[in-house]
């Protein structure tokens, strides 16, 4: 079996599990894990947006929660204050987040490394405090809750709404899946390869005629879009928006999820996010210092598996594929695939 075939198989198992989770999880563990699982998938998008920047373009952002927050407030303000329907509110959240990323990015991507990281934190703090103090619009400390508008209504008696938990679950996995598919397509495109060259060697990239600034900005906007979709989904999921989700703690957590999952692998963030959210769910009330364990895991991963769990997976797959190759080839020197 080739490495690509093993990866496809792994992906198929993951997809089947995700599709069947609303039936499977109540049987195996407990019904509330369905909700936790949808939450994990949403949060994994925030980690994916960190990963898109850090893993593929080499920019470490500690401010992705800002765009998550924009997506979240866009939806909540859209529904609660502007009286928008489901889709316009969803659109408002995503557009706000993406526009914010374009503005913040135009300044931030001129800088690299710690300067870049610092300015992303500064941006998210500015808007965190803005959200806290702009009470009439954002609800301030209390946040802003709203009641769910229907996605689709036919006549008076039939409507599709996220108030139905099955609809909500499948809507979430559909949107999250579409985001990963979109990132998958982009990363296989010339633009995706341009991202990697900027990560590897920005000087060389510009010497071959690539506009490094524009490439970084494009990635930043794309990452803002992904984080915005996550925030919009999360607002619908909780029927609520709150500034606390914009705080840089949240951005930092997403960085940890991305690094543990494997920066530079498409689905690493799902793994990292799931693992750490499961840890949180299982340990946080049993042991208040469970973050120590998270810290230890981060240190171990950074030292022993710098490409995270995604990198470990890929290394394993390659080894299995090579072993299978040698068994089948019987040593007649077919070489590597």
């Amino acid at each position, binding site marked *: 079996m080739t490495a690509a075939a093993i990866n496809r198989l792994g992906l198929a198992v993951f997809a089947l599990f995700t599709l069947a989770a609303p039936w499977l999880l109540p049987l195996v563990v407990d019904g509330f894990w369905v909700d936790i699982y949808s939450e994990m998938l949403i949060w994994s998008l925030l980690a994916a947006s960190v990963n898109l920047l850090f893993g593929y373009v080499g920019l470490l952002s500690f401010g992705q929660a800002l765009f998550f927050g924009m997506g979240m407030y866009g939806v909540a303000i859209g529904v609660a204050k502007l009286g928008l329907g489901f889709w316009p509110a969803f659109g408002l959240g995503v557009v706000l987040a993406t526009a914010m990323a374009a503005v913040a990015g135009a300044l931030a991507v001129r800088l690299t490394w710690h300067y870049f990281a610092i300015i992303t934190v500064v941006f998210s703090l500015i808007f965190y405090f803005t959200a806290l103090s702009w009470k009439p619009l954002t609800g301030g400390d209390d946040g802003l809750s709203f009641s769910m508008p229907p996605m689709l209504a036919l006549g008076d008696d039939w409507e599709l709404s996220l108030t139905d938990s099955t609809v909500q679950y499948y809507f979430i996995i559909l949107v999250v899946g579409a985001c990963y598919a979109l990132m998958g*397509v*982009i990363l*296989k*495109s*010339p*633009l*995706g*390869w*341009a991202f*990697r*060259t900027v*990560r*590897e*060697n920005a*000087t*060389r*990239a*510009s*010497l*071959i*005629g*690539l*506009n*490094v600034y*524009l*490439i970084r900005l*494009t990635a930043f906007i794309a990452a803002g879009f992904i984080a915005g979709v996550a925030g919009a989904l999360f607002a619908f999921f909780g029927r609520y928006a709150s500034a606390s989700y914009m705080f840089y703690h949240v951005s930092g957590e997403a960085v940890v999820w991305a690094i543990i999952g494997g920066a530079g692998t498409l689905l690493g963030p799902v793994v990292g996010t799931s693992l750490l959210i499961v840890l949180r769910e299982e340990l946080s009330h049993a042991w208040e210092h469970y973050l120590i364990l998270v810290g230890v895991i981060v240190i171990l991963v950074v030292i022993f598996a710098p490409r995270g769990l995604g990198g470990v997976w890929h290394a394993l797959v390659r080894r299995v594929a090579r072993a299978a190759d040698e068994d089948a080839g019987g040593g007649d020197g077919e070489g*590597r695939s």
Partner: protein
Amino acid sequence: MSGPILEIADVEKHFGGLAALGGVNATVESGRLTAIIGPNGAGKTTLFNVVTGILAPSAGTIRFLGRDITRSSVHEISRLGLARTLQIKSVFHGLTVRENLWIAAQSREGVFKPFANAKTCRRANEQADALLEELALTRLASQQAANLSYGDVALLEIGIALATEPKLLLLDEPICGMGPAETERTVEKIRELSKRIDIVIIEHDIEVVFDISDDIIVMALGRVLARGTPAEISENAEVRSAYLGDDDA
């Protein structure tokens, strides 16, 4: 094409109080292989940096193909057809050899194509494969650049530059650190390339320089000390005492 492909007029570059370039005037003629020689710290690499837009000159103008590129950015200059290798070899370490060549070729087709599949970008694919063949790197195609020998990295960097289809190629000590066999192979390659691309080479190996170049520019202390054919330079008394005498006796 008539006239010089590159014109450097009164170019200065100061680092604090140090004048790395103190008013350089030089031209590169099309169809001739030009070498730049000079002792360490003469300003040769700085001149390349200023020409390719990596450093902004403190004064002076630079024209490439008759166009003023003094204030152009690095990627714009590359797109006009000026490619270069760096003294400290610079490739994309985490990518494979083929990917290195592929992205350089694709840069000419445009990379802002988020929905195209890289595997189906025909021109860049063909060009990457042709360059692998031409530089005898095919056997290393799927190796990570980080795992290559020093000589192969230098060769790959030339390949990357070629993939951008330059009209003028600036090579900064391309054979430095290569073994004798590799050196010979690379020098032959450069000679062959110079038939279709204009080349400027910075090189310390005087034997190689006199062997392959049509024009030599001698730099010292941020200025052009002399220029001429290899025969003229070898007879220039000033050059002999200032440079050839103590560096290559």
